């Protein structure tokens, strides 16, 4: 019986199908995007039937159709289109991009919002556009000059160095001389990540974020104002950077490769007096200033010794052109089952200085599975990465005397005498974050996410001194672990077309642990070993552990009426283990409102105004500090002294705890650093989106920055931490985007952004008394925090030139004693003439005056993209205006001590106006190395310079190979390009590079200039 039915079925199939098919004709059509590029994978359905098909790679599809059939064309990212089939022409369709879907959703804290409904100050950067035209180790460096008010400085030329990012002005201060940076919070796919290690727990100095491969990032969103950031509560005061990684897209699997190779070229290096010039300079200094009986070392006087008759170009020897390689590959796709994305990356950026470089290995997989008809989405992200930074063991030094022979000289052949050793810095990160989203019913979504993140950094250092033959060997491991558990519930009901409302409630619990283990040994004889030998007296090991937890409840409400009147509010409560019971919880509220005025009737029919929005917000967010146990009053069990003796630890064999005299005692009053920020802004889009204009004005008051104030010595304590300084940052931000030309012809896209910021300390405790910071460098004096001046402001001695005659040195009429200069220096002709501000005839800390502001007034960027047919050229510039800096690099090199001869290279004195004899018009006072106290100091108002610069950072010329050119090669798209990085800098700064500066305005180049890079690359997709 069964066979009969089967056969009948076969019969009907064979006989009847052609009959049915006859009434419908097989038709062929194509689907293109507005630029005329074929769309592969677009769905075409015949309305009212189950007939459907997909387009192939050339955008072609085939369907059997009857006249009058209605075809529905759809593709992700494009507006669906219905076409009634009447004749063949109807079958070739162009789909319009759906801006509502693609561009207009912005990722915000714990969710996303329609761009039109956003009320906070939020900036989005599409990373793919950046990675095409820029090459950098880390995504943050690529953001430089892209977002108004986000000041990014690549302040070291060393591969793997950490750029500084300051959003809307500096709001951090350190207790000592070092300049603190107000770090934003980094959130990857909804999970806050470890972005740095606190100083005590940092093993390597490698940029922690450099292990995120920029090619894996879809977009970066910067939450600048409080209404956007406050939902991240206690860590959001310095802004939040949301990173969304790339996911698979519907259509056929996308396989992409990007390969680039290039060279790093050595820019201009330090000026060095070589050979005879160095000899002359040294002998001249001895002739002029050496005390009786002191004569120059033999290497300068013994001209017959071939070992010292060199003119070695150490920089030329140690700096060399190097290679950069960058390879990225990925496969991504999506369907009804979910999506997948797998990517691999390898970057090797050799440094221009011998022994330096940076490598990154990264792997990331992201998969989502849809279940229960799409009501349940399970998402897994696993990211693995390693960065490997090599450094020179002796702190990047290339500063050897030019009289010494180079290692490749026959004189020293075979003896590797300089800078033996290695300094390997390896950072590993593993991050696994699964999350589950359940649509409980239409409007209600529940999401639970868990994230485990582990970073490990290792440093192995071995260095050998050629002078003493002592070897230092150290090894350290730092580990961070981050556990996060997060639950959110989103309710977004629809009440008709006029109202849209969205309510979010959530909870998160987070634990961050850090551990460090270090061992080191100093061996009298070289031991060429990677392992640290635990040898008797001179090896000391240490380990430390710290942990903090955070428990948070948060909620946000967004309401829009007719998409015209917008309102948002958020509230977060954070509890932190860092505080005493009383101050444990902090509340961080924010409110915002927006008005899409372009939707008002007034502007109806206006052809120039596409959209316009006014925004306003106010909110409170916070920050804490690194020391997890500060408020609890950590006790100190003492440590071994320099001879490994227990003198500080025990007495008569009994050990005990004392307070840590530097951090004060248990302080339940310590509380959150809270930042109150008000923001008003306007977004305008004109002439069909050809011109975009964004302006924001903000005022950010950061209250209670943690600082130590000195306690009277009679208390026993050195200092106590307090929520001491209030800092106000005020600023304006402007962004202008224009797009000129047609898609097919010449097109010019321009983006210009610039931001003004003013930084002021507005309140200090004890009646606004100055806080003089602890100096870690001993002889120098710590900087001052003073009301009315900016953070890191220069408090310098006021230079009045140089004493040219004895008579110029002031004499106290009451005592007959001469003015005493710094460090009780007896002044002489040729010394710096500092102004004795308080008239006590002693130059000391009291005579410092406010002399300059290292915080930039204006920062910004300017990008230009030109496209003509398949060619495109992109030029990226960044600038900074109105900043005071000090060329401490040259000051350090001119600051000569008694042992200066032979210890290093000297600058060519001819290039500097140095005082030698009465009447010299000089910038620099006498270089007498035998002076009681050096006359060359950083804190001298004479040396303050304008640190403004304009930099053409990167230019990329690329050519897109189209299908015709590729012919039969099974490649969908391909692109060849050339990128030049660090093209030109325009500045008045006398030092190597006005960008290589610490946050505090001192030169940070330390002999490692920023390389110039030329890269050639090809990227293609299958």
């Amino acid at each position, binding site marked *: 019986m069964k066979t009969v039915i089967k056969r009948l079925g076969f019969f009907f199939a064979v006989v009847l199908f052609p009959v049915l098919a006859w009434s419908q004709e097989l038709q062929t059509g194509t689907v293109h995007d507005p630029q005329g590029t074929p769309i592969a994978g677009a769905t075409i359905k015949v309305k009212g039937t189950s007939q459907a098909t997909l387009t192939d790679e050339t955008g072609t599809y085939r369907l059997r159709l009857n006249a009058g059939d209605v075809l529905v064309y759809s593709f992700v990212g494009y507006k669906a289109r219905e076409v009634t089939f009447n004749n063949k022409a109807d079958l070739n369709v162009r789909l319009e991009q759906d801006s509502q879907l693609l561009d207009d959703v912005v990722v915000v804290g714990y969710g996303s919002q329609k761009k039109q409904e956003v009320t906070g100050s939020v900036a989005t950067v599409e990373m793919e556009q950046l990675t095409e035209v820029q090459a950098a180790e880390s995504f943050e460096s690529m953001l430089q000059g892209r977002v108004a008010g986000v000041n990014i400085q690549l302040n070291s030329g060393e591969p793997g160095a950490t750029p500084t990012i300051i959003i809307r002005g500096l709001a951090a201060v350190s207790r000592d001389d070092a300049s603190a940076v107000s770090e934003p919070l980094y959130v990857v796919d909804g999970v806050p990540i470890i972005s740095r290690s606190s100083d005590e727990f940092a093993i390597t100095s490698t940029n922690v974020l450099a292990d995120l491969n920029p090619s894996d990032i879809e977009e970066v969103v910067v939450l600048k104002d409080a209404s956007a950031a406050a939902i991240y509560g206690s860590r959001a005061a310095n802004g939040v950077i949301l990173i969304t990684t790339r996911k698979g897209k519907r259509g056929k699997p996308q396989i992409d490769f990007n390969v680039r190779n290039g060279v790093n070229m050595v820019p201009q290096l330090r000026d060095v007096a070589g050979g005879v010039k160095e000899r002359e300079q040294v002998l001249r200094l001895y002739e002029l200033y050496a005390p009786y009986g002191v004569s120059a070392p033999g290497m300068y006087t013994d001209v017959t010794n071939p070992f010292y008759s060199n003119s070695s170009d150490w920089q030329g020897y140690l700096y060399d052109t190097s290679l950069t390689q960058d390879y990225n590959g990925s496969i991504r796709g999506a369907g009804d089952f979910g999506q997948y994305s797998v990517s691999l990356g390898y970057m090797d950026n050799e440094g221009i200085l011998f022994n330096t470089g940076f490598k990154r290995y990264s792997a990331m997989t992201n998969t989502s599975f849809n279940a229960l008809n799409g009501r349940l989405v399970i998402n897994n992200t696993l990211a693995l990465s390693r960065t490997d930074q090599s450094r020179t063991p002796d702190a990047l030094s290339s500063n050897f005397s030019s009289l010494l022979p180079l290692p490749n000289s026959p004189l020293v052949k075979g003896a590797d005498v300089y800078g033996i050793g290695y300094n390997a810095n390896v950072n590993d990160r593993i991050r696994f974050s699964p999350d589950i989203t359940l649509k*409980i*019913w239409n409007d*209600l979504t*529940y999401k639970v996410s868990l994230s485990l993140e582990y970073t490990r950094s290792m440093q192995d250092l071995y260095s050998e001194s050629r002078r003493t033959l002592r070897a230092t060997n150290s090894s350290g491991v730092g580990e961070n672990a981050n556990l996060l*558990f997060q639950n959110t*519930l989103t309710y977004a009901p629809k009440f008709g077309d006029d109202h849209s409302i969205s309510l979010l409630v959530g*909870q998160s*619990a987070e634990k961050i642990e850090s551990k460090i283990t270090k061992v080191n040994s100093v061996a009298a004889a070289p031991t060429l070993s990677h392992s640290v030998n635990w040898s008797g007296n001179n090896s000391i090991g240490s*380990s*430390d*552990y710290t942990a*903090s*937890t955070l*428990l948070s409840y948060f909620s946000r409400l967004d309401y829009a009426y007719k998409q015209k009147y917008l309102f948002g509010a958020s509230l977060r409560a954070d509890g932190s*283990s*860092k505080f005493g019971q009383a101050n444990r919880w902090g509340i961080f509220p924010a409110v915002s409102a927006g008005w899409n005025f372009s939707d008002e009737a007034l502007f109806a029919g206006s052809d120039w105004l596409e959209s316009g929005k006014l925004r306003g917000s106010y909110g409170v967010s916070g920050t804490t500090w690194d020391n*997890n*146990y500060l408020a*609890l*009053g*950590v*006790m100190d*069990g*003492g440590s071994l*002294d*320099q*001879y*490994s*003796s*227990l*003198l500080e*630890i*025990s*007495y*008569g*064999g*009994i*050990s*005990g*705890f*004392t*307070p840590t*005299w530097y951090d004060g*005692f*248990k302080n339940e009053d310590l509380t959150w650093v809270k930042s109150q920020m008000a923001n008003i802004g306007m977004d305008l889009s004109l002439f069909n989106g050809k011109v975009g204009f964004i302006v924001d004005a903000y005022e950010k008051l950061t209250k209670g920055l943690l600082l130590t*104030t*000195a*306690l*009277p*010595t*009679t*208390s*026993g*304590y*050195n200092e*106590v931490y307090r929520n001491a300084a209030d800092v106000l940052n005020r600023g304006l931000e402007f962004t202008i985007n224009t797009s000129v030309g047609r898609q097919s012809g010449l097109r010019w896209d321009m983006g210009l952004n610039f931001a003004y910021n003013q930084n002021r300390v507005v309140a200090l405790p004890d009646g606004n008394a100055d806080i003089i910071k602890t100096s*870690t460098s*001993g002889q120098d004096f710590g900087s001052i925090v003073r009301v009315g001046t900016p953070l890191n402001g220069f408090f310098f001695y006021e230079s009045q030139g140089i004493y040219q005659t004895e008579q110029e040195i002031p004499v106290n009429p009451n005592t007959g004693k001469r003015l005493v200069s710094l*460090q*009780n220096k007896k002044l002489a002709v040729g010394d710096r003439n500092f102004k004795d501000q308080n008239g006590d005839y002693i130059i000391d800390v009291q005579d410092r005056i406010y002399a300059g502001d290292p915080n930039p007034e204006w920062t910004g960027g300017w990008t230009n993209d030109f496209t003509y047919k398949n060619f495109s050229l992109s030029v990226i510039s960044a600038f900074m205006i109105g900043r005071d800096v000090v060329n401490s690099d040259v000051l350090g090199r001119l600051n000569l001590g008694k042992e200066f001869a032979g210890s290093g290279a000297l600058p060519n004195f001819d290039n500097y106006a140095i005082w030698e004899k009465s009447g010299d018009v000089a910038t620099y006072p006498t270089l007498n190395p035998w002076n009681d106290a050096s006359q060359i100091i950083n804190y001298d108002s004479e040396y303050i310079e304008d640190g403004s610069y304009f930099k053409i950072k990167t230019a990329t010329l690329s050519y897109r190979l189209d299908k015709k050119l590729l012919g039969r090669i099974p490649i969908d798209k391909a692109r060849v390009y050339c990128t030049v990085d660090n093209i030109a800098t325009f500045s008045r700064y006398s030092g190597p590079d006005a960008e290589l500066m610490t946050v505090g305005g001192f030169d940070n180049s330390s002999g490692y200039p920023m390389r110039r890079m030329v890269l050639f690359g090809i990227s293609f997709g299958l």
Partner: protein
Amino acid sequence: MKRRQLIVCLAVLVVITGSCRNWLDELPLNTVTEDQAWQNGSDAEGAVAIAFAIFRRALAGLTKDDTPATTRNGAWGDHFFWGDARSGDWITPNNDGDWQASFENRLIQRTELEPLTNWRLFYRTIEQCNLALEELPAITENFSEERKTQLLAEARFLRAMAHFYAARVWGDIPINLTARNVEPLGREPLDAVMRMVVEEAATAAEGLPWQYEGPRKTVMSRGTKGAALVLKAHAHMWLEEYEDASAVLQQVIDSKVFRLVTVDEFRALFDTGDSDETIFHLYYDESKGEYSDYYGHIMTYYLSNPYTPRTNLTLAVPRQRILQIYPDYARDRSDKRVAAFFESVDFSVSGTELRPIHADPLQNGEREIMFAKFRKPKDLSYSRMDAPVPVFRYADVLLLKAEADARLNRIPEALANLNAVRQRAGLGTYDRIDQPLVIEEVLEERRRELIGEYYRVYDLVRLGRLHEFNPDISERDERIGAGFVPVSREAFANNPNMTQTEYWQFNQ
């Protein structure tokens, strides 16, 4: 259905919240917080012991680890600078500029001398004692009442001791008797400080035993009744309350806990402190890991080869001065102390070998006699320097009582104690009965007996007689405080009530 799902979700949230109650309690693993630090008896033991350790470092001198205001890498042995350097008896044979400056009372000009003007570690000792006195009473776990009384008394003793020592160095000093006191304290008159020391030492003595179980060296490195009483007596001496001083010292003598050891037993007394003569010293012991190396011990500067690698002497008493201080030795070589305190090294032997010591302690030239009262093993290294830092010993008690009695015109009593010390040194009895002569002789005997033990300058300053022995200090200078050490600049930070000693205001 939907409602049930919502309820489940809310229930999950509630459960999560509930389980997070202890989530926010994070405590350090490798140290303790203040709340954890005062739990039981062993915490209390540690807290008081560590206060003595701070005081030990205070006497050695602070370093840049203690305060960033100084640049000194390691301690120099500041107790010598304060107690002996300016007595006029010392020279620096290798012409060390810093030591020479300190002999000449030039204590402000040189950066390297700045740390010895800084009293920070004294007040750190005081604060640690204040914390112990505040926290200990509440501790009950594994802490007997008897032990609690003792430890509280020890903290009280050490607090008074630190004030006393600082007052001898700086003169008028701030008094801090409360924990966590961050008020800017001004300087109190020296008399008020000594008055406080008298009262506090008396209170402490009540709670302290004469002796604890254990070796002498350990026992006498802590607060005992003897140490507290001697402290009280010293304070009485500063207050010129000789009757009280004499009475208190008599108590110490009557206790029979201490005795004058023989000259042959001096090595134990000075090199280890394990001696019946020790009353209070600061503990060092290489075997317990509590030792000094190059920095941190005055022996670095006293000793040379064969004890240390040093080939010359940094600190010494010139030969003529030795003969002047010890006239009996100059006359007939009778004073055994010269051979016990001084050595002549055979400098003709190479510095890389252990140089022999001449049989005659004064064989060498004027500037070549090594002060060898405190010694370490002969090994040409700076390591294992663990001689204790003496504060009080029995000979000091006898001579102090002799001075008090002499001033009270009780000459026989004075002579009895004076002669006990003289007798040990192998000298004949002193039998003059003229009061000023006896007082003078007692002072000279103190100089002979206690040389290099940080008494001499304090004796002279107490009596206002430093100018007689130090040619760089005039009588007028001494009247306005030249005998005291200047107050460091750091003490003025955040303290409007701080004042500089009058002399040092004008002698920067």
